[in-house]
C-alpha cells in the first residue's frame, strides 16, 4: 500500500515536471495583446506658407501645417488641391495637380547659397498632350511660396517644362523674387 502510494506520488511529481516543461518549448503564438495607448502625434514642424490664387487672380498667402523633416514642403503643397475651407474662401491653385514638385532636400552642393532646386515630375499624358503646364500665375505661386521659406532667395525648377506655344521643351528656369523673368506678378504681403 505504501509502495503504491509512493509510486503514485512519484508519477504525479513526474507528470508535473514534464507537464510544466513540454508545452512551453519555443516561442508560443499569442492572441491579440494590447500594448498600451496609441502614440501621440508629436512631430515638430513649422507651419508653412503657401501662395494660392483668389478669384481676382491675386496671390494670397495661406498657412498650412508643415511636415517634420521637410522644410520645403510648402512647394510640394502647391499642386495639392486646396482644402475645403480654402475653397470656401475662393482660393485655388494654378499649379496643375498632375505635377509633382519635389524640393531638393538637402540643397545640392553645387547650388549657390539661397538657391533651391525643385525637381518637377509630370505625367506622360501631360507630355503627350503638350499641355500648357506653367502659367505665369503658377510660376508666381512657386516664386512667392519659395520666397516665404527662410533662407531661400531663388528657385530652380528642374525637369520637363513647357512654355506657352512652344510645346514640350526641357527648360531649366530660375525664379527670383526681385525682377526675375517669370516674376511678373507681385506677391501680396
Amino acid at each position, binding site marked *: 500500500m505504501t509502495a503504491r502510494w509512493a509510486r503514485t506520488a512519484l508519477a504525479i*511529481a513526474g507528470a508535473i515536471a514534464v507537464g510544466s*516543461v513540454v508545452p512551453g518549448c519555443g516561442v508560443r503564438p499569442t492572441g491579440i495583446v494590447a500594448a498600451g495607448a*496609441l502614440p501621440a502625434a508629436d512631430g515638430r514642424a513649422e507651419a508653412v506658407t503657401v501662395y494660392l490664387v483668389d478669384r481676382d487672380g491675386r496671390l494670397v498667402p495661406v498657412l498650412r501645417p508643415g511636415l517634420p523633416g521637410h522644410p520645403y514642403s510648402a512647394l510640394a503643397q502647391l499642386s495639392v488641391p486646396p482644402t475645403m*475651407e480654402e475653397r470656401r474662401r475662393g482660393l485655388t491653385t494654378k499649379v496643375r495637380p498632375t505635377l509633382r514638385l519635389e524640393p531638393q532636400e538637402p540643397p545640392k552642393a553645387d547650388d549657390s547659397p539661397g538657391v533651391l532646386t525643385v525637381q518637377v515630375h509630370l505625367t506622360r499624358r501631360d507630355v503627350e498632350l503638350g499641355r500648357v503646364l506653367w502659367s505665369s500665375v503658377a510660376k508666381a505661386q512657386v516664386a512667392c511660396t519659395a520666397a516665404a521659406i527662410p533662407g531661400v532667395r531663388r528657385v530652380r525648377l528642374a525637369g520637363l517644362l513647357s512654355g506657352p506655344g512652344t510645346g514640350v521643351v526641357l527648360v531649366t528656369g530660375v525664379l527670383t523674387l526681385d525682377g526675375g523673368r517669370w516674376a511678373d506678378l507681385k506677391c501680396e504681403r
Partner: protein
Amino acid sequence: MRGVPAAIRRWPSRRRAGARPPGGDRYRRRWFSGLRLRLTAAFTAVALLASVMASGISYILLRRAMLQRAQDTVLNEVRQTLSRMSPPELPPDSAGTLSAELEVALREPGRKVAAVPMLFDGRGALPAPGTLDVRVSRAFAMQARRQMVFQRITRGGKPFLLVGTHVTQYVTTTEEPERTTPPMVFVSASLSQEAADLRSFTGAIVIADSLALAAALALALLATRGVLRPVRRLGAAARALGDGELNTRVTVRGRDELADLARTFNGTAEALERTVNELRAMEAASRRFVADVSHELRTPLTSMIAVTDVLAEEAAASEAGGTAARLVVAETRRLTLLVEHLIEISRFDAGAAALVLDDVVVAAAVEATLLARGWSDAVTVDGPRDLVVRLDPRRFDVIVANLVGNALKHGRPPVRAVFAPTAREDAPGFALTVTDRGPGMPADLRAVVFDRFVKAEAARTRSEGSGLGLSIAKENAVLHGGALEAGDAPGGGAEFTLWLPIEQEESG
C-alpha cells in the same frame, strides 16, 4: 577447559549436516530490488524533479524576459518613431509621403513595415498581402485603430511579432478627414533569433539536467552505500552469531541510529557469549565430573569383580547364597558395563574420540561381530561381499553390535542386517539396515531413542542395558561423518539405518 573445545566443535558439525542458515540468497536478491534501489530511485527522482523544475522555471522566466525585451524594443521603436514623425496636423494629401518615410525609418533586417491609409468606411485598413511576413487579420486591424496591439504568430514554423498601431492627438477636418489623417502602421518582426537562442538554451538545460541526474545518481549510490553498508555488516554479523561465532562484533562508527544499533548488537552478542560460555563451562564441569567419577569407579569395580567371582564360586555350595552371589556378580558386571559406557561417552564429549582407520570388508566385519557375540544363527546378513570401506573397525563393531543387540533384545526374530552402497548428498557411502519383526518403536520413543539413558521399557528400572548403547553408536557414526537413524520397517518392527561414507579424511 577440557570441555570447551568439544562444545565449540559441535557448531560446525551442525553446519556440515546441511542445516545452513537461510537468508543468503534472499539477501543477494534484495540487492537490486530492495532498499538500495528504492533509496536510489527516490533520491534520483527528487533530484530530477528539482532540476527539471528549476530549469523549467528559469526557462520560462528567461523566455518571458527575452520575448518581453524583443517586443518592447519593437513596440518602443514603433511608438517613438511614429510619435516623432507624425505631426499633430498633417498637411493635406501628405499621408503617402509620411507613409513612405515611416516605412523607411522603421525598416530593419528581419522586420517589414507597412503604412496604410486609414479607411473611413468602418473597416480596418489592411496592408497588401506579401508586404509583411504574416497576414494581418481584420480583427487585429480593428483593434489597432483604438490602441497599440501586438500578436505573436507562427508562420511556416517561424515565429513573428506583429505590431499594429495608429497615432492619436492629431487634428483633422470633419469634411475631408481622409486627406489629413496619418496612416496606420503595421510592423512584422522576425523572432527567429529569440527562437534560436531559446533552442540553444534548451540544449544547455538538457545537458545540465543530464549531468545533474548523473551526479544525483552517483551521489545516491554513494549515500545508499553509506547507509546500507552498516546494515549489511550487521546482517553478516547476526548470521555469524547465529552460526555460533559468539565473539562476532561490529565496529561502531559515527553517532547515528545505525551506530546505536551496532552498539546494541555488540552488547547483545557480548551478553550472549558470556551466558553461553558460562553454560558451556558448567556443562563441561558436569561432564568432567561424570568422567572423573567413572574413572574413579572403575578401579574399585575391577577389584570387586575379581572378588565377587571368588565369592560366587564359594557361595555356589548353598542354594540361597548361590542366588545372592550370582545376583551380585551380574549387577557388578552391569555396573562395570555402565562405567565403561560412561567413559566412552565422556571421551566423545571431551572430543578425545579419534578414528583408527583401516580398509574393512563390510561383510566380514559384520559377520565377525555377530560371531564374537554368538549371534550368527539369530541374524541373517545380506549384502555385497566385496564391499570394502575405510573406517574404524572397532567403532564399526560397536555400532553393529549395538544395533543387532538392540534388535535381538527388544524385537523378535528374524533379525536382518542388510548393507549396500548408497550415496547421500553426492557423497559415496554405504547403508547398513538392521530390522526386526518386533512390535516396532512407540512413536514417542523414536525422537529420543538416541538420547542417553532412554530405555524402551521406561517403567522397568532394572533393565539389562546401560541406556547408553545407542547414544554411543550414534556418536561413532557421526564421528565417521555418517548418520544413524531409527524408523519403522515396512513389514512392522523397528529399523535402524546406519550410513557411513566410503572415504574418510585421514585426520578425522
